[in-house]
């Protein structure tokens, strides 16, 4: 990079005040550009205050919080099942992943082991959520840089995933699909589900990935716009707590699915010695926007392989855990058809009853499409958590934004935002 930053006079961090703007906007050399919060290229509501030297970004100050909705405060007032409706609205590009992460943490708190059938279904949907999120990120990153066709291929394939989610949960966008110790409901028909997933993998996804890669991988304009842009080294990525494909593009060899396995990624997940699913973790060392794109595309292929391994071997049996019937809501047929089911239902949902949580706190994380998505739950013995802290991967990854954009052209800022896959609902919570 031939450009070196001019030594700037130290200035006040409060860039929002007009005093600051007055002082700096008329220097003739640097000017301040307000980017967002409503701008088509920011994807969602986030704001950057860019101090520009000509067209180079000399300093970038991200401002977030425009979508802050108090999700963590709400978690203290909803019970362990109800809160799933809130978490699924955090990273809405792959909502089902949040459900699985949240109830994974709750089951760790309660020390519940879920059934093999539930584990397989959650793993399949987790990987489907990963593909859903990566398709959005890759397609929209292309769109921001002018590759409109790749965007259409990506979004066309995402529609099929929404159809599958609609089939299993009854909602397209926010499935709220998991429950403590199980799922909202069993599959309506396992055969139909398997056929839908296989048809999508074979007829749709493989072609869409081929088309997108053919359009972008060796596209001279795309490469020029993305290679060497927004570079983050391996040391910086670890020091800034980055995770997920964002960090793996910088050479951080780390994936929670491999390093702290959960669900079907762990060996012996069915209690009978089954091996964990086989997959590879793509890593690149350049740490630029292009390598983030490549890592995400490779992860889509690996996720498809994981689904292919599991889809033919969905075990039978119950969907809810049988270890402790006091933890799981009975199916609706039992609630309406038997007195025991009705009692058990009200034991859990009445405000003075419900779960007997331990008085303790624990942390549990999974590998979400954007990195380590963790929940720190403080429980006080009541059916509602005392405090829920989410570890949002996008929030942590996005905190490197100022570092990545410095010295780049204004038009590259758009590409860098796309490569972080910023979803402001998770960023601000």
């Amino acid at each position, binding site marked *: 990079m031939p450009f070196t930053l001019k030594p700037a006079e130290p200035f006040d961090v409060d860039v929002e005040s007009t005093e600051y703007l007055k002082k700096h906007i008329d220097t003739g050399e640097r000017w301040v550009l307000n980017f967002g919060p409503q701008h088509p290229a920011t994807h969602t509501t986030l704001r950057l205050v860019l101090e520009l030297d000509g067209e180079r970004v000399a300093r970038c100050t991200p401002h977030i*919080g425009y979508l802050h909705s*108090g999700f963590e*405060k*709400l978690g203290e007032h909803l019970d362990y099942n109800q809160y799933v409706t809130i978490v699924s609205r955090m990273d809405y590009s792959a909502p089902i992943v949040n459900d699985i992460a949240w109830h994974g943490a709750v089951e760790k708190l309660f020390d519940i082991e879920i059934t093999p059938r539930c584990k397989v279904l959650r793993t399949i949907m987790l990987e489907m959520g990963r593909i859903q999120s990566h398709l959005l990120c890759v397609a929209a990153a292309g769109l921001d840089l002018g590759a409109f066709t790749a965007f259409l291929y990506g979004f066309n394939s995402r529609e099929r995933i929404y159809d599958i989610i609609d089939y299993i949960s009854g909602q397209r966008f926010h499935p709220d699909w998991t429950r403590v110790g199980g799922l909202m409901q069993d599959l309506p028909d396992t055969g139909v589900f398997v056929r839908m997933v296989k048809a999508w993998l074979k007829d749709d996804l493989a072609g869409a990935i081929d088309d997108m890669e053919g359009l972008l991988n060796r596209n001279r304009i795309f490469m020029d716009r993305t290679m060497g842009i927004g570079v983050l080294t391996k040391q910086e990525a670890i020091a800034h707590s980055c995770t997920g494909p964002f960090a793996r593009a910088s050479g951080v060899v780390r994936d929670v699915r491999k390093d702290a396995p959960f669900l079907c990624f762990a060996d012996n997940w069915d209690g009978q010695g089954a091996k964990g699913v086989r997959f590879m973790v793509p890593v690149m060392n350049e740490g630029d926007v292009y390598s983030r794109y490549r890592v995400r595309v490779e992860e889509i292929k690996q996720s498809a392989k994981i689904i292919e391994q599991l889809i033919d071997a969905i075990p039978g049996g119950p969907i809810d855990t049988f270890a402790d019937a006091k933890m799981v809501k009975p199916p609706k047929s039992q609630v309406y058809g038997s007195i025991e089911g009705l009692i058990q239902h009200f034991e859990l949902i009445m405000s003075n009853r419900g779960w007997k949580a331990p*008085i303790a706190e624990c*942390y549990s994380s999974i590998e979400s499409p954007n990195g380590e998505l963790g929940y720190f739950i403080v429980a006080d013995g009541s059916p509602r958590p005392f*405090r829920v802290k989410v570890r949002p991967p996008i929030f942590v990854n996005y905190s490197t934004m100022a570092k990545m954009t410095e010295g780049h052209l204004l038009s590259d800022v758009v590409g860098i935002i796309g490569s972080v896959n910023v979803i402001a609902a998770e960023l601000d919570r």
Partner: protein
Amino acid sequence: MGAETPSNAASNAPGKGPNLDHPVFALVKGHFASKRFSATEFRGQSTLIVQPGDAHAVLGFLKNDPRCGFNFLADVVGVDYLGYPSKTIGRFAVVYVLRCFEREDLFFVKTFLDPSLPTDGIVEDPALYLDSVTDLWPGAEWMEREVYDMLGIRFRNHPDPRRILTWEAYPAHPLRKDYPVRGREEREQFRLVDRTDA
């Protein structure tokens, strides 16, 4: 190590106390011989409880000592324990979630703070101060800003000590337990619109 905190002791399997044989406990105790610590464990997750003044030194030791090697700060969590059913050392707690990539180890360092001033506003409380760990892990910058914004715990030597999710003039720290979920008067100031003048 000292006795475990009552808050977590009762929660493990009955008749069995927390399992405090994580090797890092002994290393920290050996290195900081004159300091007082306590420890607890739940579901295989070990937590070291330190005095607020020692937190930065202990975290620096955990990061830089090769036998500990916690190179990755996963999260900084702020908790307000007002009204918690079991007794805690202080009202506020800050938990650092550490990871070691080499050994695949998860470790928690927790420190308690007690406010000295009323907590219903945004007054600066000299008792609610911790040393920032941004010099150890630059990624702590936004995490600590969030703890400050949500709970009003300030961090010394922080490079950019602004609020992050709410705006600067917001009259409360909303994740404190004495802040109601429906807000405090913010809603009451909205103009009421009924059918006749809508």
